[in-house]
């Protein structure tokens, strides 16, 4: 059984947010970050798919549609490992609250939908400790689809799950793909202790709920940062 960072004795805490594209999770994690920062706490925010070196390969693979389910999975695992080893772990050792917009569960859901064996994907990520808290933003499928589809010129190939050949129509493919990912999230929810947030609510209602849960489960006073250098 993989442990959380707290169980492994790290002084830091990792909070992950998960959910479909358009579930509003990025807005929520940004507001959470601001709240913690403004209290003078040590906070770091990390995004899925953001390691600079790996990103150049990922974007080439995506643009030229070179990726298969296996290489799609491996290149995202590489990106994650890079951030994990060089950023997340050192910061958690230094006692930071690390906020992750998507964590390993995104890979578990997407790669499995693409046809990679579940066991293979999970073992691939077995080097990573589990978050101390995972918020799952659950919006109705139609709500998240509309948020993404409105005001966007065109869905990208992999984003729409076109590689799965679900439909020749990008929008239709995206709908089916997102539906399957949602099913995967729901299936993982209790196994990984997701804290489900009703993402159909107003932004403020969701945020106050998130802040309540975080302050109830984490002793925030332990994460006060050092005084700024100029005040020493």
């Amino acid at each position: 059984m993989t442990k959380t960072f707290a169980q492994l004795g790290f002084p830091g805490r990792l909070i992950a947010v998960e959910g479909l594209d358009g579930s509003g999770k990025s807005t929520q994690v940004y507001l959470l970050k601001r709240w913690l920062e403004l209290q003078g706490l040590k906070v770091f925010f990390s995004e899925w798919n953001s390691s600079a070196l790996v990103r150049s390969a990922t974007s080439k693979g995506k643009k030229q549609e070179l990726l298969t389910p296996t290489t799609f999975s491996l290149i995202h695992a590489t990106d994650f490992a890079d951030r994990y080893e060089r950023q997340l772990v050192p910061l958690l050792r230094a006692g930071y609250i690390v906020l992750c917009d998507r964590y390993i569960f995104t890979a578990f859901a997407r790669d499995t939908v693409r046809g990679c064996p579940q066991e293979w994907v999970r073992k691939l990520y077995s080097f990573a400790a589990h978050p101390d808290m995972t918020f799952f933003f659950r919006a109705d499928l139609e709500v998240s689809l509309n948020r993404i589809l409105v005001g966007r010129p065109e869905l990208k190939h992999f984003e729409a799950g076109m590689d799965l050949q679900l439909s020749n129509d990008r929008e239709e493919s995206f709908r089916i793909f997102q539906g399957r990912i949602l099913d995967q999230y729901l299936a993982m929810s209790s196994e990984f202790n997701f804290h489900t947030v009703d993402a159909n609510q107003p932004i403020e209602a969701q945020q106050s709920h998130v802040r309540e849960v975080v302050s109830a489960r984490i002793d925030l006073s332990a994460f006060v940062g050092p005084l700024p250098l100029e005040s020493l």
Partner: protein
Amino acid sequence: MKKPAAPNPRPRVSAVRIAVPTRAQHRFYGHGLPHIDLSQLSGRLIVVEGADGSGRSSQIAALVGWLEGRGHATIQVGLKRSTLVSEELDKAQNGNILSHTTMSLFYATDFADQLENVIIPALRAGFMVLADRYIYTLMARDLVRGADEKWLKNLYSIALVPDAVFYLKVSPEILVQRNFAKSRTLDYWESGMDLGLSRDMFDSFLKYQSLIIEKFNRLRRTYDFEIVDGSRSPSEITSDLRRKIEAVITR
């Protein structure tokens, strides 16, 4: 009326008999790749493993010529040659900026890309695929750097089981001499300098290559490969390999 020309006697040509490979049953080591049908792979996957200086590349070159001469379409693959990530892997290596797990996964991505886009399609088309190193080198390097063996086995459970694997085994002492004879210098990575085994590169090379040999011996318990004595003369090794490959083709 013109007399029809007498038919020319057929020119005498030495008998041209090309061995047609029998259909082979291929399989993956474990989970394998999704959506790939292995029943149609009529080619052969032949792997040559060994350190730099083991004679690996020259043996492969000799084998390619020999196979083509015998009428087999042949293709070469090797590590760090994928369209997808080879460029980025080079950059990462030159800067020595990626951590171990990241590097493992990056190499695995490179491998998977070539497996799906080069190796399997070539085997399907009936080619002889000669692989200049395969998953074993990648695993041995990672094991030396402290990777978890179970994790690696799962990672590479996507790999196709080759029809033959030859490991050119050469002692570190001979390797070091051959590397100097060839380029007068030792490669940073082949000397395992990232491991801090010794600040003396010569010393580090010897230690690192012994560790790699140790890991190859360990991997042999799980993965079937043939150890070939690489300290013999190149022609001796070539004829040894030819004989073994012949058996694989007509098996």
